[in-house]
């Protein structure tokens, strides 16, 4: 019996991937003994003689002298008298599944912030202790305007704590405060009533404002507008921002959630899209991040309802509703709150 055995280009070093066939020492038909040199191969580091693994005869030459052959690929075929330990598993190249690139999300229109008044630059290059940098970022302080009194002209916490706020930011904060105060003044004389309920559900902002909008849509008789616009209060470094989500119950919840997330991010940086700055018919204020609750949400000008979400315990929240009694009576107000709580 004889066995057909392909003698392959061997791997001779850890990094070798191909080898060059230099020459054959045998011809087709030659009888060889185990250990006889069959051919010489070379890589950049090593040249070696490849030996016959067993006694046999050369059947055919596969590669040519000068060829560069991949390791594991045959150089010649011999017929051996004894079985040689040889394993040819071939290569399994599975086609790589095409990776789908998710379409880039469409960014909402960004309003450009008010151009700040040019501050006085004290240092072009800044050295500041880590906490000072964190504090400055939180408070909108430009470290270039802060006087450094620490060793090696490094800005210390003391320096930052004593620093003046960027005048432009202070101006915007003051403007925001004035606007809100004026609004509250306008609603002071309106007859209103407030209701409170505990809720054990878990919900995010998108879910809540969609649920609230849906409840309102079912009572068009209590509305003062054609559309529903839910203003969500978000704290930013410039004070409170009130982006308005129009008809949120008519969006797909996933789309609404994405919109709420991107708007929240933008608002925290003081950049609410201009299109979202008007059209509020109701307002939602989430106090749970401050571990607080308020049983008497404030009505905003031209709005019939106002809602707060408050913190009661790790598992329960308090939802409170204020209604403008000119448009909505006690009983209907209670029904609205019931409907909202039931839908959460």
């Amino acid at each position: 019996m004889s066995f057909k055995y392909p003698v392959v280009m061997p791997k001779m070093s850890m990094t070798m991937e191909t080898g060059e066939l230099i020459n054959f020492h045998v011809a087709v038909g030659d009888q060889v003994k185990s250990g006889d040199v069959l051919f010489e191969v070379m890589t950049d580091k090593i040249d070696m003689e490849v030996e016959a693994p067993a006694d046999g005869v050369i059947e055919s030459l596969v590669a040519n002298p000068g060829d560069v052959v991949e390791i594991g690929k045959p150089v010649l075929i011999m017929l051996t008298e004894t079985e040689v330990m040889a394993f040819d598993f071939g290569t399994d190249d599975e086609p790589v599944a095409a990776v789908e690139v998710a379409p880039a999300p469409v960014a909402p229109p960004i309003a450009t912030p008010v151009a700040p008044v040019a501050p006085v630059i004290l240092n072009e290059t800044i050295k500041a202790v880590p906490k000072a940098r964190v504090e400055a970022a939180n408070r909108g302080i430009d470290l270039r305007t802060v006087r450094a009194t620490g060793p090696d002209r490094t800005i210390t916490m003391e320096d930052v704590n004593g620093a003046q706020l960027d005048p432009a930011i202070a101006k915007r904060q003051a403007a925001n405060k004035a606007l809100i105060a004026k609004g509250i003044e306008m609603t002071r004389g309106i007859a209103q009533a407030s209701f409170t309920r505990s809720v054990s559900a878990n919900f995010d902002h998108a879910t809540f404002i969609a649920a609230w909008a849906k409840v309102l849509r079912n009572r068009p008789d209590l509305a003062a507008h054609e559309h529903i616009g839910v203003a969500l209060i978000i704290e930013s470094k410039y004070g409170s921002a009130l982006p308005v989500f129009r008809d949120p119950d008519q969006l797909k919840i996933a789309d609404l959630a994405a919109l709420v997330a991107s708007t929240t991010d933008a608002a925290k940086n003081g950049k609410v899209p201009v299109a979202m700055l008007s059209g509020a018919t109701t307002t939602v204020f989430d106090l749970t991040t401050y571990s607080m609750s308020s049983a008497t949400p404030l009505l905003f000008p031209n709005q019939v309802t106002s809602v707060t979400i408050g913190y009661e315990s790790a598992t329960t929240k308090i939802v409170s509703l204020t209604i403008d009694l000119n448009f909505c009576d006690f009983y209907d107000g209670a029904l609205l709150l019931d409907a909202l709580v039931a839908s959460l």
Partner: protein
Amino acid sequence: MGHPLSSPEHARHALLYMWRIRKFEEAVEDLFGRGMMHGTMHLSIGQEASPTGMCMAMTLQDQITSTHRGHGHCIAKGADLTRMIAELLGKKIGYCGGRGGSMHIADVETGNLGANGVVGGGIPIAAGAALASKMMKRGTVAVSFFGDGAMNEGAFHEAANLAAIWQLPMILFCENNKYGMSSSTEKAFAIDNLADRGKGYGIPGVNVDGNDVVAVYEVAQAAVDRAKAGDGPTLIIAETYRWKGHSRSDKNLYRTKEEIEEWRIKDPIPKFIARVIEEGILTQEQCDEIQNEAIEAIKAAVNEAVKAESAEPSGLLDAVFKAVSA
């Protein structure tokens, strides 16, 4: 086990295990040559008689430490072929889960405390195992396999001395294949007879033809008996030869073709086959059948191992320490 010539079963065991080692190493050579194994391989083709003979004088509970050229020791002590190939292929079911590779295979169930990538690394460890055996009165022996190259390491000296002064049940088994990588024993030693080193420690030093499995067994059994009787360690110098280079990156620049040829003639396997046939213990057919059995066993192991799952990086951090029990 017992003397290889004492019965057909014993002869069969000796021949089967030598063939298993031979065919295993040839398979590794093939797989490595195809680029399927990472790193490098240290093959022991031509040296099969030494571990086979030594391990036939041992029980499962007796322990061994091995070297970077340790496939033969592992197989002779009874390791599972599939798990060995799987380890070389970086598979989960490999002896080390793909984390150790060729030079770090251990098999607790067969008393194998591990191959070692450091020359001489296993010798003091075997002394410690022998110490534990003595302290716990287990009656087992620890065999340290090492090459001629290790005999010039400080670790050999320190371990041999400890074994001698504490009369440890230990065998220092040197497979003298004449070369520590490229340095020949003629150049690395100022003495001709390596066994003479035993005298320096007060240990008997014994020479044996490492390619004669019967001779190796006889010397090994005597050393095991000495150790288990409480008479201390023995240094065995088994003369053998490796056909292939030190590792797969070796170009054989340091020895001649004639030298390599001379040793092929002393192939331990045909030598043993001739003997058992001459003494009527086994027939040629039986010998052929044993060879086939070994070939089939290796093929089955390779085929199974190749299909096994590859080792994954998750869990590497947790693998460094053994968990502390509460």
